[in-house]
């Protein structure tokens, strides 16, 4: 455990040295949140009954997850592989699970930090109070994160080259960021697009988080099972198909 921690500390420092992480995971959700809240914070978003402030807080609390899962995790691992860092790691007693766990925890800490910053802004500056149970929300947020990360890890294992990884991550990241309701509130979408957003993995998580945030705990079973299934399937594929080079 002590050995894992020293590896983790180094990797986490490297994460914080990457300007993309600071910009996309930490700064971007905060900026979008401030904009949406200043423009329409008190208005009720049409379909859900949530105000734009309530809706935006929940949605944007998943942007850190989205950035980590579909950008940082696959990019870090695939770049290490194509540059030969993983080839060197192969020649050591380090197991793939340990390496993946380390990078996942680093990304998880970034995602949590992103949400923490957002929460401080929402609660202190804009007077946001969550009607639902905060601990239930945290649990569901964690489940959403783990589930999205497993998709990112699967992409990292399956994509052999930086090129194919860039294509796949762009195909996942931008649609999820824009159309799952993470940045643009799903409430303003036309009906067809809203149906698509509900089918996206991140959209499932966001819907679930919205329900929990307003204290509505019925209809939780299906999305929770969906997220767990994604985690199990993608996580297994990620570990089984992992390649050092």
């Amino acid at each position, binding site marked *: 455990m002590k*050995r*894992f921690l*020293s*590896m983790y*500390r*180094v*990797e986490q*420092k*490297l994460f914080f*040295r*990457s300007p993309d992480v600071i910009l996309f995971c930490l700064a971007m959700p905060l900026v979008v949140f401030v904009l949406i809240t200043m423009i329409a914070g008190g208005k009720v978003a049409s379909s859900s009954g949530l105000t734009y402030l309530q809706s935006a807080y929940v949605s944007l609390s998943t942007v850190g997850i989205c950035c980590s899962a579909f950008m940082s995790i696959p990019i870090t691992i695939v*770049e*290490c592989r194509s*540059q*030969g*860092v993983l*080839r*060197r*790691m*192969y*020649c*050591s*007693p*380090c*197991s793939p699970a340990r390496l993946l766990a380390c990078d996942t925890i680093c990304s998880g800490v970034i995602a949590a930090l992103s949400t923490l910053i957002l929460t401080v802004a929402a609660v202190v500056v804009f007077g946001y109070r969550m009607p639902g149970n905060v601990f239930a929300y945290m649990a569901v947020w964690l489940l959403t994160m783990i589930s999205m990360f497993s998709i990112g890890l699967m992409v990292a294992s399956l994509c052999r080259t930086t090129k194919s990884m860039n294509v796949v991550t762009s195909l996942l990241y931008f649609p999820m960021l824009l159309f799952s309701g993470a940045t643009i509130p799903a409430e303003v979408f036309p009906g067809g697009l809203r149906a698509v957003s509900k089918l996206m993995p991140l959209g499932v998580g966001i819907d679930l988080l919205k329900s929990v945030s307003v204290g509505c705990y019925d209809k939780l079973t299906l999305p929770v099972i969906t997220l767990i299934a994604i985690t199990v399937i993608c996580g297994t594929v990620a570990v089984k198909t992992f390649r*050092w*080079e």
Partner: protein
Amino acid sequence: MNEPSISVKNLTKSFGDRRVVDDLSFDVRKGEVFALLGHNGAGKSTTIDLILGLKTPDGGTAKILGMDAAKHRKQVFERVGVQLQHTQYQTSITVEEACIEYASLYASPADYHKLLDGFGLAPLRKSLVSKLSGGERQKLSVVLALIGNPEIVFLDELTTGLDVVARREVWRTLKQLKEQGLTIFLTTHYMEEAEALCDRVCIIKSGKKVAEGTVDEVVAASGGKDLEEAYLFFMGEEELL
């Protein structure tokens, strides 16, 4: 009892039509320094990749400490250190962080401060690896190969890109480690390096073994006066002599 540290038997590997390693066999005994010599593209790095399990052979076997590296990766690399040609590092990692990270992978790592000292890298602890000179980076990759306190170390073209002083520093450290019982497998383009360090050498041409033995035996068999002449003789480049 005296099982060879590395045992290669009839190793064969082709890429497409090109046979890169051709029925290659040799043993490396415990505590000896062994060099694999040959031209660029002679199959040296591929042979190392096959022994380490980074590539799968088409035929033959390669065992380290009696084990197949691909199957027993963890056990093998707990006891075997590796310096690959062109070792790469994560962007924005410092020298010390690279040492901490690699040391954390082993059950009983060496003291990396001492290793950095021994290779003259101690003042660069806080420097980014990407800002190091070629020679400094090369020395760091040797430090990382030794960081797990290995019984065997693989050094692929370890002194390529090093200046004369740095090369001598590396030689000195390797000789000290040899006295402590370390088995060293290396490849090099410098015959004087092989002469200075090695107990035995194996010369390969297009993946095939053309000579093997102690430096003296190989020189004697060629009729030349030193290893460089012997090397050119076995490579069929006598007209250069």
